[in-house]
């Protein structure tokens, strides 16, 4: 039930707003340029590139969440992490990338799930460099992990997100694993002396 509600919200948004669209090739090229520049700056130290992409995503996420809240017209918090996953996949990704990743592989405690990306607008036309390392070390779309981490932190959820497979590396699917670490408490006003 929650799932159909979430997809309806995503669809509704797209109908309600004649949203400005940006050319897909522009997105692919812009994002690609960032990754290439990072690879150059860090001498193809792909572990560091992953880290930088995640950090950039984090800073985007901190802001993007406000836009998400404004656009999605959600008035209340998700009551559990499963609902959060639905909203991420069916509203968040729908609004910003017009894709709906599949939610699977829940752990029994409901704190970890996977997003499987059937399509990934960032990765069109992309082939990883043939230097024998990129295929094993670079997570090309790692910025998305950071975005989720930043966005969820703003709504009081500390999460960890990382890719576990990527079709660019020759895997069958592109899968991101997301784990809830904890809910963050409200900050209290400083005590008066």
């Amino acid at each position, binding site marked *: 039930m929650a799932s159909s509600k979430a997809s309806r919200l995503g669809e509704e948004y797209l109908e309600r707003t004649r949203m400005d669209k940006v050319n897909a090739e522009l997105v692919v090229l812009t994002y690609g340029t960032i990754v290439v520049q990072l690879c150059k700056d860090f001498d193809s130290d792909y572990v560091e590139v992953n880290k930088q992409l995640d950090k950039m995503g984090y*800073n985007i996420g*901190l*802001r993007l*969440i*406000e*836009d998400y*809240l*404004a*656009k999605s017209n*959600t008035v*209340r*918090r998700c*009551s559990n992490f499963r609902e959060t996953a639905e909203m991420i996949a069916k509203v968040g990704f729908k609004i910003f990338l017009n894709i709906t990743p599949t939610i699977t592989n829940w752990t029994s405690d409901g704190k970890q799930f996977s997003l499987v990306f059937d399509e990934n607008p960032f990765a069109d036309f992309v082939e990883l460099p043939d230097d024998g390392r990129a295929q094993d070390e670079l997570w090309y779309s790692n910025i998305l992990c950071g975005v989720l981490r930043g966005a969820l932190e*703003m*709504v*009081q959820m500390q999460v960890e997100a990382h890719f576990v497979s990527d079709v660019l590396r020759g895997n069958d699917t592109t899968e991101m694993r997301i784990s809830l670490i904890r809910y963050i408490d*409200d*900050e*209290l*006003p*400083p005590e*008066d002396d």
Partner: protein
Amino acid sequence: MVVYSFYIFDRHTECIYSKTWLPSFSSADPSPPAGGGGGTTLRASTADDAKLIFGTVFSLRNMVRKLGGDNDAFVSYRTAHYKLHFYETASSLRLVMLTDTATLSMRNVLHQIYINLWVEYVVKNPLSPVEHKGGAGVRNEMFEMGLDQFVRGLM
């Protein structure tokens, strides 16, 4: 309807924006309100007011949730002289507006301020900082003008 003042508090409980729309005491005004020693006694310290207001709304919000469940929301309270309206986003941004007592719910107005002014002019400004320590990045021209126009349009 009269709007007296407006405050924004961030998730770190800091007051990052405040504005008052008190009746004008400018020299152009032919009839300043009678009584008192002019406008000087009106406000001792805006910073203290903001702290008191935050303490109040924060406690009320917690109390409301305790009694009414997590989905309940503190909306407003009214005294003999004013009405305080409260709106909190999921990202823990708190908007507070003080109006006269006859004003109906301003929840929608505060929501509009959030989506049309805050998100558009503060959050989406790539050069404004993410955290608004001391109000940094909030006092930009677009936001202030937009807010003033919007609120004056209501009155």
